[in-house]
């Protein structure tokens, strides 16, 4: 039945993920509009539901402009290299308990979370290809900055994930969900905070969205792209956002489990509710905060998130050794330590300044 599994997954991923991403794009535009005291798109279809469809049609009928002096082949392949990893992340998220109707269909990769971290590092190559194929000095600068940002924030992200892996004792996502008698967001609040901030930076979203800032001069590595290729970059960003929300829901919120085991055991729906929750918080932050400067961004990653994530690992490792299986009452010392650390460290760490003597 492996063929069935494979076919099911190819069909689901190729078909359902873009539709889901478009639904989330609609949600973002309406949600952002509501945050900004305006309705958001409401012309194309009832409540603007057909707006992403209209955007897709518009983008497909646009002229595809390719810079003459750039490398055409590289320019063509770059959006694919950026988009594919975003889709690949969805192949390992468990949506239901194995058994019953979906027996044999739920993914259970041994190295689940490591696979996700590895696959999401592939899109950096795509960013470089896009910048190179555009033959534009500012695209190059922007790609370097984007890479520096992604690489710097990958480390606290991976360390926060490592804390979850230590607590669960397995890298398989199904195993992690099943090990969450108490969701890890409660047991490891510091890990969740670090993961969330690092994920926001990985996704290039406000407050770390320097790449898309019109107020910055360098206009992003996808400046020379038009039409469907640009849409692929845009879709990749949203697909990756939904993917990270799904990962956060699986790692920290308990995946397909109903809260406290009560309620209908429809795994997929609980997962979708949790993904929506995380996505709404990411959206909320986008509509609220200004963005940081690039040197403040790097300073924040290396001087604030990185040491905190190391301390988090030490604490989780010590607790896993002393009380294997992490009993639920560890949430109290963990929360206390998280509060103290965050307050003390943010008191010591100050962003800002940075004038150079000219």
């Amino acid at each position, binding site marked *: 039945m492996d063929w069935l599994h494979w076919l099911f997954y190819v069909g689901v991923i190729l078909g359902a993920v873009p539709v889901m991403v478009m639904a989330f794009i609609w949600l973002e535009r309406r949600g952002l509009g509501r945050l900004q005291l305006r309705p958001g798109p409401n012309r194309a279809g009832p409540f603007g539901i057909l707006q992403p469809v209209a955007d897709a049609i518009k983008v497909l009928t646009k002229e595809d402009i390719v810079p003459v002096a750039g*490398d055409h*082949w*590289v320019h063509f392949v770059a959006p694919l290299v950026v988009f594919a990893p975003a889709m690949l992340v969805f192949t390992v998220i468990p949506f239901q308990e194995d058994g019953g109707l979906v027996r044999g269909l739920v993914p259970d*990769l*041994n*190295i689940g979370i*490591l*696979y996700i*971290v*590895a*696959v999401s*590092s*592939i899109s*950096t*190559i795509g960013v*470089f*290809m896009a*910048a*190179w194929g555009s033959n534009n000095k500012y695209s*190059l600068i922007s*790609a*370097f900055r984007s*890479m520096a940002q992604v*690489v710097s924030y990958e480390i606290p992200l991976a360390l926060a994930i490592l804390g979850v892996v230590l607590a669960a004792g397995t*890298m398989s996502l199904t195993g992690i969900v099943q090990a969450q008698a108490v969701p890890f967001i409660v047991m490891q609040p510091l890990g969740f905070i670090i993961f969330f901030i690092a994920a926001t930076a990985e996704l290039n979203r406000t407050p770390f969205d320097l790449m898309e800032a019109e107020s910055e001069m360098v206009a992003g590595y996808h400046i020379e792209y038009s039409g469907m290729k640009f849409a692929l970059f845009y879709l990749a960003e949203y697909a990756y956002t939904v993917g990270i929300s799904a990962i956060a829901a699986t790692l920290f919120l308990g995946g397909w489990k109903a809260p406290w085991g009560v309620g209908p055991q429809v795994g997929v729906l609980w997962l979708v509710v949790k993904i929506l929750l995380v996505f709404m918080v990411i959206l909320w932050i986008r509509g609220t905060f200004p963005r940081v400067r690039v040197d403040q961004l790097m300073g924040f990653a290396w001087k604030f998130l990185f040491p905190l994530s190391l301390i988090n690992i030490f604490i989780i490792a010590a607790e896993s050794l002393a009380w294997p299986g992490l009993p639920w009452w560890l949430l109290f010392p963990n929360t206390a330590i998280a509060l103290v650390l965050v307050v003390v460290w943010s008191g010591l760490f100050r962003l800002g300044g940075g004038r150079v003597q000219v």
Partner: protein
Amino acid sequence: MDLQAVAFYVLAAMLVVSALAVVLIPNVFRAGLFLVLAFFAVAGLFITLGADFLGAVQILVYVGAIGVLLLLAIMLTRDVHHGSPGNRLWLPASVLGALLLGAVSWSLLNTTWADKAAEMPVPATAALGASVFDLQNGFILPLEIGALALLAVVIGAIVLVGEKK
């Protein structure tokens, strides 16, 4: 022919072709991209052998870090559009390369390898971790030495690009 053999031959062909493309293609950036493709092929070979952890780490480290670094260095170089400069020594180099290939293949094929049929334990990661951190025959010391070497590299990099006051 079972699936594993087919997968091995496809991946091996991909690896050899990309490796040849790296040295033969004049456009340096595309050569770098083919190197990344070669890394993918190696990861695939790891996975056919059942070493899933190694395959994922190969992608994470080689493609996500070393490949990126390589492409970064290529993009920062000027005059890359002119392609690789010609090399007068290409004939002796290819002859030497072919001789090396022959020697390595001959020695590989004529060695009796121990543990040729040992099965990869599933899950492989736990077995890997256990053997590395085993207190008797483990590899903790080389791991720590490697970590120290990496620390020296990071400090050296910071010193090199630090602002001259």
